[in-house]
């Protein structure tokens, strides 16, 4: 067990790639909102690059990957990354220093809460959002990361697998987004008017950079430039490609015309869906996972959302929550322990139900934890303060009301 510098090179760069995903998400979300809320939406993602990074270094890593307490949370042994040197911690990665593992995991701790912002866009007070993200990281993310990935974590002990963060990243953020957006309430005019995106090329830019960064997210989760990384790379790309096409097909059938916004959405949910299984399922299964995620999410975004009338503004739940659940189930269907011995059993499709049940259990637990704790956090915040901007502020736009800033001040050229 010694450090492999090829793996270090790979993981350093994957860490940078995953970093890039949060700004990418800021464009993906920021392009989708009305102009008057675009900077607010971008900053809602971007400030997390600051906040979550500092929290991670201070205590987040320690609580997630430190010494186990009851399978639920880590300890305070690595506070301020104390004691993390260049040694290998073979519980997590056997060829790179633990400090590099901590850096890589930090980027996950940044993007996950940023995903939630999509559900809360265009109406939440910025300072309350900051508080929410801090509390959510502390009470939802660190425990969940510990339970699923941490040494001694109890979901891990169930035998459930999660390659790159289906539970920890996508289901948790998606469900939390749903709960929080219901508690926050609908945007003004919900159901009556349309909220038009202000910059679809930015949505596409975000999707493209997300895809690019996702190679670091999924292939990097092999924690080395090894065969598993290559496998995860291919399944990732295949699922994204398949979902892109199937979303376009749905649009073609339903409306006669595919759209760029649809293609971008398809690609992103294809990436979401393959995340838990990227290093477990065979290549052909990744195509199936991708093909099916589009109709599933499309159904939730267009039908279920309309029916239950919750205002998941940018479909954080519809894309990440649902896509993540499907990905987790699909991993239980198609995983093969021959691909990755980290899976104890083969998937249901190969005749063994154990992994499948473990996956269902782990999803249910993740949903429950995320929903309950998010409810508690938002409930307390609502008791303490107003969490929404005023009616006037909302119609003026949050860029002005929350930041006294507008996105394109000199764009008219009249200066």
């Amino acid at each position, binding site marked *: 067990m010694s450090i492999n510098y090829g793996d270090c090179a790979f993981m350093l760069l994957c860490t940078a790639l995953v970093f890039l995903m949060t700004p990418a998400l800021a464009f993906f979300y920021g392009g989708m909102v009305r102009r008057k809320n675009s900077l607010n939406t971008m900053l809602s993602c971007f400030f997390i690059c600051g906040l979550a990074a500092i929290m991670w270094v201070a205590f987040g890593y320690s609580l997630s990957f430190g010494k186990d307490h009851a399978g639920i949370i880590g300890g305070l042994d690595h506070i301020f990354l104390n004691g993390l040197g260049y040694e290998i911690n073979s519980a997590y990665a056997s060829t790179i220093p633990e400090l590099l593992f901590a850096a890589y995991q930090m980027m996950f701790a940044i993007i996950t809460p940023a995903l939630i912002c999509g559900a809360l866009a265009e109406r939440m007070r910025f300072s309350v959002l900051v508080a929410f993200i801090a509390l959510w990281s502390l009470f939802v993310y660190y425990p969940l990361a510990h339970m699923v990935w941490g040494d001694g974590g109890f979901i891990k002990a169930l035998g459930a697998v999660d390659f790159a963060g289906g539970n920890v990243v996508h289901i948790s953020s998606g469900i939390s987004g749903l709960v929080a957006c219901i508690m926050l309430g609908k945007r003004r005019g919900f159901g009556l008017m349309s909220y038009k995106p202000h910059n679809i090329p930015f949505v596409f830019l975000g999707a493209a950079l997300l895809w690019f960064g996702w190679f670091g997210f999924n292939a990097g989760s092999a924690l080395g430039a090894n065969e598993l990384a290559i496998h995860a790379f291919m399944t990732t790309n295949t699922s994204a490609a398949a979902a892109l096409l199937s979303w376009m097909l749905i649009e073609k059938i339903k409306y006669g015309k595919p759209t760029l916004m649809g293609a971008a959405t398809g690609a992103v949910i294809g990436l979401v869906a393959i995340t838990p299984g990227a290093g477990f399922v065979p290549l052909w299964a990744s195509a199936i996972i991708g093909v099916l995620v589009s109709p599933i999410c499309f159904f939730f975004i267009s039908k279920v959302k309309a029916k239950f009338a919750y205002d998941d503004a940018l479909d954080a739940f519809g894309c990440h929550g649902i896509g993540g659940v499907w990905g987790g189930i699909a991993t239980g269907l198609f995983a093969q322990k021959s691909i990755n011995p980290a899976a104890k059993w083969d998937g249901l499709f190969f005749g063994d139900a154990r992994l499948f049940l473990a996956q269902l259990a782990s999803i249910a637990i993740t949903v429950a934890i995320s929903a309950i704790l998010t409810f508690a956090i938002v409930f307390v915040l609502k008791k303490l303060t107003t969490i929404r901007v005023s009616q*006037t502020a909302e*119609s*003026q736009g949050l860029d002005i009301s929350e930041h006294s800033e507008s996105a394109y001040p000199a764009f008219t050229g009249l200066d």
Partner: protein
Amino acid sequence: MMKKIEAIIRPEALEPLKEALIAAHVDGITISQVLGCGKQHGWTEHHRGSDVIMNTIPKIKVTLVVTEKRLEEIIGIIIEISRTGEVGDGKIFVTDISDCIRIRTGERGEKAI
């Protein structure tokens, strides 16, 4: 007689005004973006720690052509919705229109409005 009403209003008044005018069954509205400079001289923005004065302010121009009968009613609605009482509420200008044509049908005059 037909009258053209041009109202220069605050951007944030547009949404409620649109709703009110549609409720009042006006025949059509045309909206455009303008920059204005009047009694209100700009809000203060902060860029990287320097105070800067915006000397022209984004405003919305709403144009409606109406029959003379409805003129005062519509002006009343605009004032009611757009007034905040603070500098910058904007102005309404009224002009006579000598003809109006609906392109689709070629109708002219008041029935084309």
